[in-house]
């Protein structure tokens, strides 16, 4: 492998987190509860493997189930509220969950939870690869198209016989499960977790990865890879890296509002690059699909 172990783990965990944000966003559920769900997965998995002696794979699975289950009450809340309100409500959920863990003594409170069994980074890589394939499958399936329809226009989706609230809750649960898996891997790779690992700033990073890449599995992959790896290139870059992301995101939002891969296909990007390299040769109609890919997930 070209990348060192910690970088592999970081990239894999970031990829899973980005995918976990992808499905709710595709279905129009603007969930910012990611660090909360991640914390539930991390603490549950860590508790199972450390204090109950379960094998790590089983603990990870329990963590995934627990965080998906936690998302259900917030999903029920989501049936009542939409858009920016839902974003703030899930934010509240995440804050409450982190607050709970910082005052819950059995898992160490603010001091953190130490002594979690260690797993190698390649487990994280394998998990990330599997999750990427799984999310490609989901995204391309009938179910994934239904999610997309719900996100694009809930009313039209409803008229076409889709159960909008159910699909949105499922999307939220899938996202929470993925975040829980990332949390479990995180706790087992670093062997130590504390509530300060699960703060709003984590949502911010992941959100920027997703939006820069585009709301597709391919976009998540590219966004999380490049933006995680850029700060690793040099230590001088590291202090300015967040600003660099930020500039990239602002520029992208102005010129390619759908992100780099709005369609989960490579072809439009290549066409876009070609059309800019030789502006005279390309036909206007060829540029059109890629030039301003619109994010259709707008109406709430």
């Amino acid at each position, binding site marked *: 492998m070209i990348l060192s172990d910690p970088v592999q783990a970081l990239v894999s965990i970031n990829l899973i987190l980005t995918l976990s944000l992808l499905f709710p*966003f595709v279905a*129009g559920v*603007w969930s910012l509860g990611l660090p909360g769900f991640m914390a539930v997965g991390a603490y549950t998995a860590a508790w199972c493997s450390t204090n109950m002696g379960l094998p790590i794979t089983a603990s990870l699975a329990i963590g995934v189930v627990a965080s998906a289950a936690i998302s259900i009450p917030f999903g029920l*809340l989501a049936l*009542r*509220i*939409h*858009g*920016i*309100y839902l*974003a*703030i*409500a899930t*934010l*509240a*959920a995440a*804050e*409450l969950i982190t*607050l709970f863990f910082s*005052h819950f003594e059995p898992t160490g409170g603010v001091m953190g939870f130490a002594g979690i069994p260690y797993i190698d980074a390649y487990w994280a890589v394998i998990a990330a690869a599997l999750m990427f394939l799984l999310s490609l499958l989901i995204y391309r399936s009938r179910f994934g198209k239904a999610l997309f329809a719900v996100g694009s226009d809930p009313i039209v989706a409803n008229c076409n016989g889709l159960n909008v609230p159910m699909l949105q809750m499922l999307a939220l649960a899938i996202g929470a499960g993925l975040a829980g898996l990332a949390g479990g891997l995180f706790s087992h790779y670093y062997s130590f977790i504390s509530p300060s690992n699960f703060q*709003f700033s984590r949502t*911010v990073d992941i*959100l*920027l990865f997703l*939006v820069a890449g585009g709301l597709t599995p391919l976009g998540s992959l590219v966004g999380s890879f490049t933006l995680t790896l850029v700060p690793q290139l040099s230590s001088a870059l590291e*202090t*300015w890296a*967040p*600003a660099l*992301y*930020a*500039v990239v*995101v*602002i520029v992208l*939002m*102005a010129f390619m*509002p759908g992100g780099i891969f709005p369609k989960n296909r490579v072809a439009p990007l290549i066409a876009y690059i070609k059309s800019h390299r030789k502006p005279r040769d390309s036909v206007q109609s060829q540029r059109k699909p890629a030039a301003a890919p619109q*994010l259709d*997930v*707008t*109406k*709430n």
Partner: protein
Amino acid sequence: MFLQQLINGLMLGSVYALIGVGYTLIFGVLRMLNLAHAYIFMAAPFAAFYFMQLGIESSFLAMALGVMGAGLLGIVLYYVCFRPIHQSHALGGFVTSLSFGIIIQVIIVNTFGTLKVPFQSGVTLPDIEFGNTILSGIQAAGLAISIVLMIVLLWLVKHTRFGRNVRAIAENENAAQLLGVSVRTAVLQVFVISSALAGLAGLLVATRFESLSSHMSDAYALKALAVIVVGGLGDVRGALVAGLALGVAEVLLQAYASGMWAEAFIWVMLIVVFLVKPDGLLGESIKRREV
């Protein structure tokens, strides 16, 4: 003792309210959350600190420059982050303003470091004593300034042309434009006013705690979001009431219950408001289906 806590609560609440008003005003005219707001709150005291280091003797002048800087930052923010983004883009303003805030924070971290920086305003005011309650002069001045500002702002929104324009845009932008409201001007005014208010709130916090840190906005950023929802999105009066109330509640809970409940109260309150009164405490927010 209780009176002292009440005053502390009002101090905290007035900071929430000053930040919240900016959030809610910008949301009202643009239908987008401006997440850079809390970072502008932090930028103003750092700018004032920078001006003091440059050798500006009068701390009042430095602070005034800090507030003006925040206002200017508001204009830059609008042209960089909101002007190029199409309004129907669901995540547009949210993400770009967040990025703008991150840039501010990175600049601050790289210039001043992540440690606390002492902030000496050099303003000395006599303490005020009534009964067994002692109120430091700085606190009293801060509270007075924020209360006066809130009253002025309410008057502005209620009785001036600017306020009528802003309320018209919040209700229906197209109709406002057809009736001759210059939307661009009003939006810019809103950005300047709310950014300057956020900067002022930052200066109040900095003078009170006599220190600055590159993470001072964190505690206020998210809670101010809760404040505007509890008050009702787009409702200035609601944001003021909710900010003051939540600040007082937080300090009282801290004093008489536990720190955990003080922290949790604002979020529990938020969820309760969602379930019971989704249009905010005063029920004058922008209606949900339009958001």
